[in-house]
């Protein structure tokens, strides 16, 4: 709790935290939506924002406001699945590589370096294309998780490397602590903050890719996400036809989401280690 209060003193954390709370509340509203997000033509098409439809309606005959609540929720679900699963991979890889060293280290780091160097976006597009039919929130999350751990495994590994050199490691080993217990009980507390801040970055990366894949038409377009909302808006030429409420809603929401996630992670990692802000290179 003290940690949280300290963090709130940073204006970036405070802003990001409240924006994120707002977006979560917005996503939670989807539970009370009067409309079914998978059905079209429930409301008049292309209506400007009004008291009845706060953010207007789109050309599919859906209410933009309520559709957006589902979009934020679904995008966040994808991001959480991708983030959490890839964290598990990153932690295992980073810890094994860092602690075991030797051949393990070289092999695992070779794989993660390869993933960093190869234009992953294309590989993900290739895979998404092949499994398009079975691409739902969970499978998309898993697909992204499978590719999203390389950079963070490196970060965790380098932290384990430095922890391994500390005195308490020797003390623990000499007093008969097993490897697994050592890693889980002694190292985990030190790496948890790093894992958390990389989790946030990874979630932002996953949402960015989800939007891109949706624009490319590789997702199930009947599931509302930030990406598919934008896809439909572009597909129906909403910009040329001046339907700004339809285009600007997913754009504004995703910009808010990206900035909030980024500020949160910057603020946390700066608080943890003011010298080295560890950040992912970008999506």
């Amino acid at each position, binding site marked *: 709790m003290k940690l949280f209060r300290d963090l709130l003193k940073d204006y970036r954390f405070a802003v990001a935290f409240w924006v994120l709370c707002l977006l979560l509340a917005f996503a939670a509203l989807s539970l009370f939506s009067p409309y079914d997000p998978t059905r079209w033509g429930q409301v008049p098409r292309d209506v400007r924002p009004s008291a009845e439809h706060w953010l207007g309606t789109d050309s599919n005959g859906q209410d933009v406001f309520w559709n957006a609540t589902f979009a934020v929720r679904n995008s966040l679900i994808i991001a959480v699945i991708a983030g959490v699963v890839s964290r598990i991979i990153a932690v295992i890889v980073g810890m094994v590589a860092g602690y075991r060293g030797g051949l393990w280290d070289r092999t695992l780091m070779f794989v993660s370096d390869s993933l960093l*160097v190869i234009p*992953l976006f294309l590989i993900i597009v290739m895979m998404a*294309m092949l*499994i398009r039919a079975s691409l739902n929130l969970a499978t998309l999350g898993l697909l992204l998780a499978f590719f999203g751990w390389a950079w963070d495994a490196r970060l965790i590994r380098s932290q384990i490397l430095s922890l391994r050199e500390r005195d308490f490691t020797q003390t623990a080993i000499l007093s008969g602590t097993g490897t697994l217990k050592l890693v889980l009980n002694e190292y985990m507390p030190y790496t948890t903050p790093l894992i958390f801040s990389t989790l946030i970055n990874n979630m932002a990366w996953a949402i960015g890719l989800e939007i891109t894949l949706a624009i490319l038409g590789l997702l199930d377009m009947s599931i509302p996400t930030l990406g598919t909302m934008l896809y439909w808006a572009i597909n129906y030429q909403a910009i040329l036809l001046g339907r700004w409420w339809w285009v600007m809603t997913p754009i504004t929401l995703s910009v808010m989401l990206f900035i909030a996630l980024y500020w949160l992670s910057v603020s946390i990692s700066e608080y943890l280690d003011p010298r080295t*802000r560890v950040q992912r290179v*970008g999506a």
Partner: protein
Amino acid sequence: MFLKQYLLPRLIQYVLVILLGITAVFFIPRLLPNDPVLRTIAEMRARGSYLEPGAMDKIISDLQQMYGLEGSWLDQYLAFWGRLFRGDLGVSFFQFPTPVLDLIMTALPWTAGLLLTTTLLSWAIGNLIGGFAGYYTNQGWSRALDALAMVVRPLPYYIFAFALLLIFAYLLRWFPVSGGARLGMRPSWTWPFVQSVLWHAVLPALSIFVLSAAVWFQTMKLVVQNINAESFVAYAKLSGVRENRVVSRYVIRNALLPQITGLGLSLGLIFSGALITEIVYSYPGLGTLLYNAIVNGDYNLIMGITIFSIIAITTSVLIVDLIYPFFDPRIRYM
């Protein structure tokens, strides 16, 4: 020593990454449950292409040959490499029978031009400004730039490019909405054409430039701030070394080293970003080629673009890594 400790492992890694990447491209369609040939045909049907019964068998056998689906996996794999070494990436399904490589080569100059200029410019300018901003960290302009980077940095390529497109092409109408040059213009080395190309390149280039420069700016600023706190910098200042020299030779030079490694590591991401940006602006490079391939279900073309990109990016990373020793005397004299 240098050769054995630095160059050789790096070259081995280069070959292995390409091998691994292309092997993945080969196996991904085979490991997934559905048959690529039947899938392609289903895609073609779903898009409303009418196929005669006789033509169907012909297409199936053509596709099988094209995918190299004859014989065991090992045979297929070896044949796949054999074709690659001959520079044969197969033919495009939807611009039949144009070889995939020809399509890539037509699109390549656009992407290469866009990517090369933006990557180099954003690296140089981002690091330069970031270096000074880190050195004069308490000045107003340094803080203002930092705040700007904090807002721009997290935006993904798609959203940022799209926002620029909305503002500068649709609302203000300063720049063209899409394309690489005015429609109907023939590529030539004449001033009107070059002008049109540059004019169309402004927004895509700006999108990539700003996003990458923000990253370099931020990392450089941080590294410089850390180096600034080192005692050798304080010592240099105290012993009367001119401030310009301290900034350039003591601080920025040291800080540039991790930035070169960073450039190598992030080339893949920048490349992906450029593809996405091209799609937003319908810029006639590899990104738009990829987009059309996806829309048409042209799997062979996508595979070709992926293989080509893997080789191009890993080679560029290798070049960056080989340049590195010239900046770091510790490796050169190892």
